[in-house]
């Protein structure tokens, strides 16, 4: 019975992704262009920093390969959210704002997961490809620290997903926060686009706890050079707290959901 239930659940998630992917590639030219431009965008961003590191060689102990690794990790983590859980974030905020969560509430499935997995962004594939290129090109990844790399990617992806659940759920509490959520997310993303080595003291402490962008942009580089179990446990703990908090924030908000009458469909 349990095996059958697992099988049907797995079949559902697989078909949901298949459908979301078909919808994403329904307009083929737009699909290909978005992937290509995302790769170009990520690589262009490196040009400026290449010039900086070419001049100064190291910044607080970081060289260009560290920065490439950090960018690769951020982009790969971002792509996991983008490809598999893009329903979190703006899409969720709009569903709540326009009262379109009804379709998900009418399905006998986990509402949060169903919403998260109902949307994929083709540009995420571009991020994923450029992330893998950067991680490989950094030269920091080897057999000895490959497990640490996977752990860091999972932490980064979970933080992106959690943050987007939190920001998407803001509309449950006060109306018309979609733009605000989007801006806050890009502010968070901004913090991960500078070399983690420039932060120190109280700012670094905040970035490793309250505003945990440091778990994506600071600690992983350090861990690739020298693995420290305590730091990995800290990353895991903070990530689980952020994930748990965002899930609670969503379900608490769901009780306030007011639906709506906007005419529309699953775009």
């Amino acid at each position, binding site marked *: 019975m349990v095996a059958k239930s697992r099988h*049907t659940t797995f079949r559902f998630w697989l078909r949901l992704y298949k459908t979301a992917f078909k919808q994403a590639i329904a307009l083929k030219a737009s699909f290909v262009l978005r992937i290509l431009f995302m790769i170009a965008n990520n690589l262009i961003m490196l040009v400026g920093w290449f010039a900086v590191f070419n001049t100064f060689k190291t910044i607080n102990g970081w060289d260009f390969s560290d920065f490439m690794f950090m960018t690769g990790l951020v982009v790969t983590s971002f792509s996991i959210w983008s490809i598999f859980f893009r329903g979190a974030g703006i899409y969720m905020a709009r569903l709540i704002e326009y009262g379109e969560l009804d379709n998900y509430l009418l399905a006998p*499935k986990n509402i949060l997961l169903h919403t998260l997995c109902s949307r994929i962004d083709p540009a995420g594939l571009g991020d994923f490809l450029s992330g893998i290129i950067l991680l490989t090109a950094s030269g920091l990844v080897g057999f000895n620290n490959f497990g640490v790399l996977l752990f860091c990617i999972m932490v980064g992806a979970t933080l992106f997903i959690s943050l987007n659940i939190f920001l998407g759920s803001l509309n449950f509490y006060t109306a018309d926060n979609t733009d605000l959520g989007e801006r806050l997310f890009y502010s968070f993303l901004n913090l991960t686009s500078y070399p983690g080595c420039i932060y120190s003291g109280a700012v670094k402490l905040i970035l490793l706890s309250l505003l945990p962008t440091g778990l994506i942009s600071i600690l992983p580089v350090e861990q690739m050079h020298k693995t420290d179990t305590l730091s990995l446990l800290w990353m895991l703990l903070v990530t689980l707290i952020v994930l748990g908090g965002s899930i609670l924030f969503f379900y608490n908000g769901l009780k306030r959901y007011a639906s709506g009458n906007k005419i529309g469909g699953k775009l």
Partner: protein
Amino acid sequence: MSQDIIVDNLSKTFFVKDQTGTKEVNAVKSVSFQIETGTCVAFIGPNGAGKSTTIKMLTSILFPSGGSAQILGLNPWKERRQLMYRIGAVFGQRSQLWYHLPARCSFDLIASIYDIPDKEARIRTTDLIHRFDLKKLIDKPVRSLSLGERMRCEIVASLIHEPKVLFLDEPTIGLDVEAKGLIRELLSDQVRQNGTTILMTSHDTGDIEHLCQRVLMINHGRVILDTTVTEMKQKYLPHQEISIIYDDGSEQIIRISSDQSVNKTIRTLIGNKNIRNLTVANPPLEDIIRSLYKKDKVV
């Protein structure tokens, strides 16, 4: 006969913010009713009466502020998942179909949502496609379907898991006469063949006359009438129209109120004249409903 839907003192209050502060809006106030298995009930009322809010509470989309409800013996807010396997819902203004994909993709996904094995899903979908005459539409992207075609697909999507109770919120909104007729026919078959219980909101009196046995009228968040369609037509007749064609070719049309005697009026009108034709017509259902909205509290 068992009761599929039991609603007891259900209420819903929204807190709406405007320039003057937060206001309390009682959208539904102590609504109670029961619906027997296999019946089709029209849930009608003017805009803002509380129809959609009630349906959204019964389908677990909204939490109530008070009262209780049981659908097929299940509590919509505590047993949401079990209930969803057994009920279906169509909101005329909403779509459960994926816009850029053919409806077939949405049907396949919906079958997975309800854990229906592939083989079984194929049989059910094929049957519904045949019954709803969707063969030519099923592989076209939903965005290219007309409203009527899309609505037929929406109804099929809500029937794939063979729900025992179907909630329809304005299923014929915006459709032309032909599309409306087809959907009514198909829903009527569904009730007759499968014993599905339907609670339906509609502003179209044709839906009520063709599909429903019973009418629940709601206004200002309260049930103001609960009767059969036949009784509503007879008991709440606001007026009747007497039309007389005399032998000399002249015509006379007169409208009398429901408390006036038809017999006495005709005698007075005719007098000693000879008549060629005489008809006494009831007003359209729309007029009856409009007069009830005006009277408001009738029960």
